[in-house]
C-alpha cells in the first residue's frame, strides 16, 4: 500500500489544472488623509479605544481601564509600568489566570483596520495578553502604516515563531448577533500612541 503522502501527490499531479501566471505584487493604496481619525474609527468599531500621549509622562496622562493603584496583578513589558502580583510571582503561564492588566508594546499599527502587529518577546507575554482582563498596547505614534500590504512589507518573511495582529478586545456575537466584549480574553483593549 502506498503511503498517504505519495498518493495525495499522485492525485494532485493527475488533477493538475493548466498553469496560471503568478500575480505580481499588489500596489497598495496610500494613507487616508486623516490617518488618526481613520485609526480611531476602525479601532472603535472593533470595541477598542485610542489615546495619544507624550512619551515622558504618558502613564500620568492617559485614562486607565482600571485604576492601577487599586489592582493586584499586572504584567508589563513596558518601561514605566511595573509588574505586580502574579506578574512577578507566576511560576507557570497558567498562574497568570488572575491577571487584571497586561501592558505590552507593539511594533506598529495599521490605519485601515485599527490592528497592531505584536511579536511576543516570550510565550508568557502571549499568555498574559490572553488571560488579562484589560489589555493595553503601546505603539510609537510615528509607526503607522496605511494598509495590510504595507504591514507585510515590514514584516517580510521573518523567522519569528509567533506574531499576531490584535484589534480590540476579545469578542463574540454568537448569541443572536448581539456583540459582547470579553469572550475568552480581555474585556477591554486600549491602544496608546506615544509622541516624542
Amino acid at each position: 500500500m502506498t503511503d498517504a503522502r505519495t498518493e495525495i501527490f499522485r492525485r494532485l499531479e493527475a488533477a493538475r489544472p493548466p498553469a496560471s501566471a503568478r500575480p505580481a505584487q499588489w500596489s497598495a493604496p496610500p494613507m487616508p488623509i486623516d490617518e488618526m481619525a481613520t485609526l480611531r474609527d476602525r479601532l472603535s468599531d472593533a470595541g477598542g479605544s485610542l489615546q495619544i500621549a507624550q512619551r515622558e509622562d504618558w502613564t500620568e496622562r492617559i485614562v486607565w481601564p482600571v485604576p492601577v493603584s487599586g489592582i493586584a496583578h499586572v504584567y508589563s513589558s513596558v518601561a514605566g509600568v511595573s509588574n505586580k502580583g502574579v506578574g512577578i510571582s507566576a511560576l507557570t503561564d497558567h498562574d497568570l489566570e488572575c491577571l487584571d492588566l497586561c501592558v505590552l508594546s507593539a511594533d506598529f499599527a495599521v490605519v485601515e483596520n485599527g490592528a497592531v502587529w505584536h511579536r511576543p518577546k516570550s510565550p508568557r507575554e502571549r499568555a498574559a495578553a490572553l488571560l488579562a482582563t484589560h489589555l493595553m498596547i503601546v505603539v510609537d505614534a510615528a509607526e503607522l502604516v496605511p494598509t495590510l500590504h504595507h504591514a507585510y512589507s515590514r514584516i517580510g518573511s521573518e523567522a519569528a515563531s509567533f506574531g499576531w495582529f490584535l484589534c480590540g478586545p476579545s469578542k463574540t456575537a454568537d448569541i443572536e448577533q448581539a456583540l459582547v466584549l470579553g469572550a475568552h480574553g480581555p474585556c477591554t483593549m486600549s491602544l496608546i500612541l506615544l509622541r516624542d
Partner: protein
Amino acid sequence: MGHVDRAREFVADADRTGWHDRALWFVRTKRDRAADLVPDWEALRERASEIKRFALGQLPELWCEFEENAIRAGAVVHWARDGHEHNEIIARLLQERRIERVVKSKSMLTEECGLNPHLEACGIEVVDTDLGERIVQLRNESPSHIVMPAIHLRRGEIGELFAEKMGSPPGLDDPTELTAIARRDLRDRFLRAQAGLTGINFAVAETGGFVVVTNEGNADLGTALPKLHIASVGLEKIIPRQADLAVFLRLLARSATGQAITAYTSHFRGPRPPSPDPQELHIVVVDNGRSHLLGRPAFREALACIRCGACLNTCPVYRRSGGHSYGATVPGPIGSVLETSRDPATHAELPHACSLCGSCSDVCPVRIPLHHQLLAFRGELARAGHQRRSRRAALGLIGWLFARPSGYRWLGRSGRFLARRLPTARLNALVSPWTRQRALPEIPEASFRELYARRRAAENDR
C-alpha cells in the same frame, strides 16, 4: 428527507424564520459598508482570485515548499487521504501522549471529518471553544453556519441550554450574561486542556507557517498553554507568499462579518520556543475529496473558497431555510457545490436549493462563479440519473413539448382559455407550493406572438 422537507420544518416557526432572515441580511449590509470603505475592493477580489488560481495550478510544488519550511521550523507534517485517516492520526498523537482533555477552536474541516465523535469514542474529551460551536456541541447539533454556528437559535433557548448544562439560573436571556457564564466554564477548560486543536485559515508555502483568525481569542488561548498543538488543514488552503496574506486578510473579515479585521490574526511558524515550556506542533494535511474536485474544470474554482460565509448571508434560500436544511457540513451556495461534488447521490437536491439570482457570486471575495457552478451541477446530476422522479418527468414533458412548436402554441391557447375561466389560483395552489402565498399575474387573452401578428396585420391594412 431532502432540503425541501427539512426547510419546511424550519419555516414552520415563522417568527424564527423572519428573525434569521433579517439577522443575516444585516450581516450582509455590514459587509457592504465595510467593502465600500476599501477603495480598491473589486481589484482586490480579482487579485485574490488570481492568487488562488495560480496556487491551484501549483499545489504539489507549494505543499512541498510548505512541508520543507514547516519541518525546518520544528513542526511535524502528516498527510491524510480522507477524514478517517485524519481522525486516526490525531487520535494516535493524543493517545501516545496519554492525553484525555483537548480544546478545539472552530474548524469546518474537523466537522467535515467527524473528528469529535471519533475522539470521544477513544475516550478523549473534546471541548469546542468557539461560543457558537460550544452551544451547538452542547445541543448535540452541527453548526448551521460556517462563521456563526448557532445563528439558528434564539437567546432564550441558549439560556435554557446553559441552565441545563452549566447550572446557570433558569430564565436568563441576556447575551452579555450568557457569554460571561460560558466564559467562566470554558476558562477552566482552557487551563486544564492538555492539547489544543485548531484549523488553519491560510498555510503559507514561503514560510511553512500558517494563520488562524478568531474574534474570541479561543484558538490562541487553546494553543498558548498546552504542550501540544495540532492544526488540521485542507489541501486548498495553501497560498504562495507571506505578502499574499494582505490580500486575503483584507477581504476575509470584511466579507464575513463586516469587520475590517478580526480581533486575533495569529501567525504560527513552528512550535513555541523550547524555553521554558517546550511545545510540539503537528500539522495534518487532508485531501478528503479535494483532489477529486481539482480534477473537474467546471467546479475546481470552488477550492478557492476562504470560508467567509458571505454567500450564505446573502442567499435568499439560505436565509429563509436555515443551515440545517442543507443536511451537509457546509451549507449555503458554497456548501451546495462542495458537498455535491463530494457525494452527488446524497446531495443531488442541493443545486436546486437556489434561485440562480447570482448574489452569491457577486459577494464572493475570491469570485467563485457559484451560481454558474450550481446550474452546471443540475445538468450533470440529471445526466448521471441523480434527479427526483417528479422533476425528471416534468422536465421530460416540457422538453418534448418545446420540440413541437405547433403543439406548444395549441397548448398555450387552450391554457389561456381555461385559465381565464377557472379558479386558477386555487387550482394552482394544489399543485405548486410556490403559489400558495403569491397571487398569479392576470392571465392575458393572447400570447405575444398573437398580439404581434395582429398588430402587423393592422399596420398592413393601413
